[in-house]
């Protein structure tokens, strides 16, 4: 078997394939539309890359199947079993009104109707001690009732199971005995944190997606076996680590943002190589703009996120997504204010300039009018764009109603789209206690290159980096992921009551739990790395800060750890209370199975071909009259070359624009690094 690896990233519009030959660092890429049956797209891509499956060591798959199942509400018919007195918690939620001016505000409806939510007698207290034992007669009756209702899956959520899962585990055993065909998830197996509604929501979503993901992965595996693939198939998780097929099948909820996570892992890996520790990952796709931060070399994570307003408690890379991309629609609101997105055109007909019948003005149409895109070289000549159709769409929808000329309207669309993205980046950085000026932007996704120059100026960032093959960068990122398992547990003890030995004991027990899960990946123990974190807060607070637990913390009655709370709280909330009593709310262990990282092939000193393709008139708002920019072929730019702005740099599937006052240099691996000249 060779060292070849393949990453497959399924996105909303495209499936991206990146094949890596680890002995040479050579990569091959391809893109296919993501419409139709995913299993078919998967193997079509493999066929088109002409890969020898028998020689592949590893396939890493980032999938949108779980998130789509949840967003489109096309999951399985399932039931829920809860502690007596609490079956309505799933529907009552937290009771808050997220839209304060909306008189018709309605929370998301529960995915399980009330008659399929059953209760059984059992009760633990907040210390995990049994108040009422599990009534096995009621438990069996509940399972039989759900079986009679022909549910495909059963979620089990008992109060305080985060601290003692015994009743839930017994319930799972009973369910497997009474109804072995059902997919069963108990809440303590998907997360060990308090807050019953959020835990129930996570558990229910997991069961909801389970049958569908299991069928999909089984069918991939069958076809791979038929084709004599003998390597491993790994699945990307929201945490940015990969996991085994069986773990993904048991825990689909771990994979919800697996695609975007690949890009962020790629950004962190790129940063390591470039010696840049603070980076903004800015992924511009056709419909969404995803932003995440890499700080001190580590992607920022969070423990909770939402899918269609439904909470999910899982370690997840902290990605903020807004509806902004090439396909975003430019429209006028009732007050005649120009808005960009959040709606975007469907993949078909697409932007007006595609000539497939679209009549709405999009960001892509504006970019074409402004001269940023070459109508004859879109997606590497796979598609021809119509300037006339773009002009009509912008004229009719924007320019005429606002009394502006076409170019000014197009420049306005681009400017507002750019500002929306800049605000998204500003908000995530300042909200997490950082200053955007201390970060470099890594712009990728098919559309990233056209926004990089604008965002660099607007945010006064350190630099903007466009990796090679930005359109398939997220797939490349998958190749950089390590195996990862997380385990967390609500601990809830004031510092005053925790001894060094007690904390050590607790972490040891967590580590042995996570190691057990890890054995099936086949990673040798010598290749694993363990990290511990504590979520801590001052007494009386609700929000926590998460800090790493280091070896040095097991001294001086845990004072170093207590001091880290002050330091991190200061960063996040501009406030430290060193005198205040504090508590440890939960403990988290992360085990990484370190994989070999792809080598990046340095560029050849003098790539063949002439970089200059020609000159084009372009229009940029804030730079007045028409500018003339050279159009360059990226693949012909040698390492070390420097391109003064404005310039257009084209490559297959992506175009980069630099502004006046900026200069782009090519590093030895082919990354394009844009800086302001006056820096």
């Amino acid at each position: 078997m060779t060292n070849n690896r393949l990453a497959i990233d399924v996105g909303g519009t495209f499936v991206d394939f990146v094949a890596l030959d680890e002995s040479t660092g050579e990569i091959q890429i391809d893109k296919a539309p993501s419409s139709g049956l995913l299993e078919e797209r998967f193997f079509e891509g493999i066929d088109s890359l002409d890969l020898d499956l028998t020689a592949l060591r590893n396939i890493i798959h980032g999938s949108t199947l779980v998130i789509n199942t949840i967003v489109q509400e096309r999951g399985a018919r399932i039931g829920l079993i809860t502690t007596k007195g609490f079956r309505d918690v799933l529907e009552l939620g937290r009771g808050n009104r997220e839209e304060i001016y909306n008189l018709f505000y309605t929370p998301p409806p529960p995915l399980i109707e009330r008659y399929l939510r059953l209760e059984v007698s059992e009760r633990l207290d907040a210390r995990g001690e049994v108040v009422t034992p599990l009534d096995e007669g009621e438990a069996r009756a509940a399972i039989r009732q759900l079986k009679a209702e022909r549910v495909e899956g059963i979620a089990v959520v008992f109060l305080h199971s985060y601290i003692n899962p015994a009743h839930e585990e017994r319930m799972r055993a009973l369910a497997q005995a009474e109804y072995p065909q059902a997919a069963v998830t108990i809440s303590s197996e998907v997360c060990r944190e308090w807050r019953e509604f959020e835990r129930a929501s996570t558990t229910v979503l997991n069961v909801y997606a389970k049958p569908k993901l299991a069928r999909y992965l089984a069918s991939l595996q069958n076809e791979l076996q038929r084709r004599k693939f003998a390597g491993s198939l790994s699945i990307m998780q929201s945490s940015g680590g990969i996991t085994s097929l069986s773990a993904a099948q048991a825990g689909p909820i771990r994979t919800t943002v697996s695609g975007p996570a690949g890009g962020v892992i790629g950004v962190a890996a790129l940063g390591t190589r470039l010696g840049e520790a603070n980076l903004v990952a800015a992924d511009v796709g056709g419909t969404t703009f995803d932003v995440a931060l890499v700080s001190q070399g580590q992607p920022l994570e969070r423990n909770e996120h939402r899918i269609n307003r439904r909470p999910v408690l899982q370690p997840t890379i902290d990605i903020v997504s807004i509806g902004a991309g090439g396909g975003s629609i430019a429209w006028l609101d009732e007050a005649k204010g120009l808005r960009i997105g959040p709606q975007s055109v469907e993949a078909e007909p697409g932007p007006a300039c595609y000539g497939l019948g679209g009549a709405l003005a999009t960001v892509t149409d504006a970019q074409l009018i402004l001269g940023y895109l070459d109508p004859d070289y879109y997606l590497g000549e796979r598609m021809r764009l119509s300037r006339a159709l773009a002009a009509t769409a912008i004229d009719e929808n924007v320019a005429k109603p606002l009394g502006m000329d076409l170019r000014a309207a197009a420049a306005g669309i681009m400017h507002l789209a750019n500002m929306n993205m800049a605000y998204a980046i500003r908000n995530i950085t300042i909200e997490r206690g950082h200053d955007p000026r201390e970060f470099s932007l890594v712009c990728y996704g098919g559309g990233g290159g056209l926004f990089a120059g604008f965002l660099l100026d607007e945010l006064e960032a350190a630099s903007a980096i466009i990796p090679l093959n930005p359109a398939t960068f997220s797939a490349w990122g998958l190749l950089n992921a390590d195996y990862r398992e997380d385990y967390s547990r609500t601990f809830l003890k004031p510092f005053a009551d925790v001894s060094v030995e007690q904390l050590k004991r607790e972490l040891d027990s967590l580590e042995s739990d996570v190691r057990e899960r890890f054995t099936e990946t086949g990673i040798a123990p010598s290749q694993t790395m363990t990290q511990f974190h504590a979520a801590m807060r001052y007494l009386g607070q609700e929000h926590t800060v998460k800090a790493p637990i280091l070896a040095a913390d097991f001294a001086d009655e845990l004072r170093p750890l207590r001091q880290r709370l002050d330091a991190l709280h200061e960063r996040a909330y501009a406030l430290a209370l060193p005198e205040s009593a504090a508590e440890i709310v939960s403990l988290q262990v992360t085990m990484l199975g370190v994989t070999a990282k792809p080598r990046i092939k340095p560029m050849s000193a003098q790539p063949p071909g002439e970089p200059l393709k020609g000159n084009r008139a372009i229009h940029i708002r804030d730079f007045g009259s028409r500018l003339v920019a050279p159009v360059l072929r990226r693949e012909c730019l040698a390492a070390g070359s420097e391109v003064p702005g404005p310039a257009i740099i084209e490559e297959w599937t992506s175009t980069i624009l630099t502004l006046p006052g900026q200069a782009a240099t090519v590093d030895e691996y082919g990354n394009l690094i844009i800086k302001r000249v006056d820096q």
Partner: protein
Amino acid sequence: MSQVDPITTQVIRNALKAAADEMMISLIKTAHNPLIYEVQDFGLALTNDRGEMLAEGSGLPGFMGCLGPTVQSGLRALGRAGFREGDILLANEPYETGTHISDTAVYMPIFFDGELVAFSALMAHWADIGGKTPGGWCPDTTDIHQEGLIFFHDKLYEAGALNQTFQRFILNNVRFPELVHGDLNAMIAACRTGAKRYIALCKRYGAGVLRQAMERVFDQSEALMRAKISEIPDGAYSASVMMDHDGVELDKPYRLAVTVCVRGDEMHVDWTGTASTVKGPTNHPFVGTEALAQTVLKSLTMPFDPMNHGHLRPLTVAAPDNTAVSPLYPAATDSYGYVGEMIIHLIVKALAQAIPERCPACSYQMFGGAIYRMDPRHGEPFIYIDPLAGGAGAFPHADGPSGLIFVGDGNAPNTPTEVIEGRYPLRVLRHTFNLKGAGKGKFRGGFGVTREYQMLEDNILIQTMNENTIETPWGLYGGEDAGVSQLTAWTGTEREQTIRGRVYFYGPFNKGDIITQSSAGGGGWGDPNERDPALIEYDRRNGLLTPED
């Protein structure tokens, strides 16, 4: 100078909204008091130099509309020349700022090139304001001086210099000085963030362009609002309700009455017919009464549009002097929220005669309370505050949502059972729908909530809030009215008591004692006989029908 182009106008409008959002991030990140960073009991805005709102941040509805008038009150009191660069002012005199004394406004004038160009302002519930009841929300005061410290456009910072005596005086007169100090600093930081962003925009576009762009936005928003009002049939639409009592005169219900006049593209809201100022603290200051009318108008016409001064131009609000919705000094206002909640629902009820398709039936009203032990001799002190969610009024097109917090509390989430049991000596026995008390209809009101607590220790007291137990939340167009919210004490024992009023220092409850809180549902919408059989089948299947159905 030529007119500002539409793109620049839109960029500036978005930039001001982003600046207000940044003020909010700054406030939430630096506040010490969970009422601010979790319940979001605040409002914030940028106004122009005349106190007209340019952009608002999120928070509680109603607060934002109070900030413009607060700044205008300051302009009246001090004059333009009375403001200097670097000033930070405090104001909470409720007749000028609109709510109750705990909601203290902090605002600052913004100068560019030596000229007053704008204000950044916010209002937040302080952890304490030195009144009769710790933390505010006095249930039984009869004049404002019992409610706490009054600020009337007083400068905490004068031209950038902190008045230390004033600050010390404030902190010496509140119960939780560290919390208050932290929140005050957070509010100041947020004001300064707003000022910084506004000044950056002045540098980029020029103060004149900013002014012109926002005038244009005001004009556009006004034109749009006029168009929206024109869609409402002309007429005078009235509604009224009897409130239970004012917290002091417990046997004396009082009336709130409103008439909404729609004429062409203008709307006028008149509170003639409302009872005189009441003796207890449930009066609602007129500035807030006006702000809530604006909130309702916006909610009915364009709930998702960022609000600015232009939206408000076509709306006028009036009330005779000295009523429960226009009290004068020294009326008590600390429990203003009961009336505030009803102001919103009453205007919707009046307009339901004109635009039924946009108006939900009435929701359950403010209910819940606190479970606490204050005296350390009786055990470790704690306080658990529990505003209970309830049923929302039915929509003209769907059943009302169940278990949503009352409108005035906005985006505040409940406390999970696992958190309650981890923190307090309480066990939650049930957290379920309350199937009683939702109004039937073609579309039924949302269900209220039942939450039952068992005490795990001795000497525990409770306080409750409740309203509209005499005239209950109404249905619309043949939909039934909702039931009442109530608390049962010592559930399942011979001492069992049903409590519909407001109690405080009630108890003591001892280990094993049970209390059951049940909030009302919402009113129904439309004739119950027209209910879709599929909905009836849904209710039947899910056990949502009561025995009498």
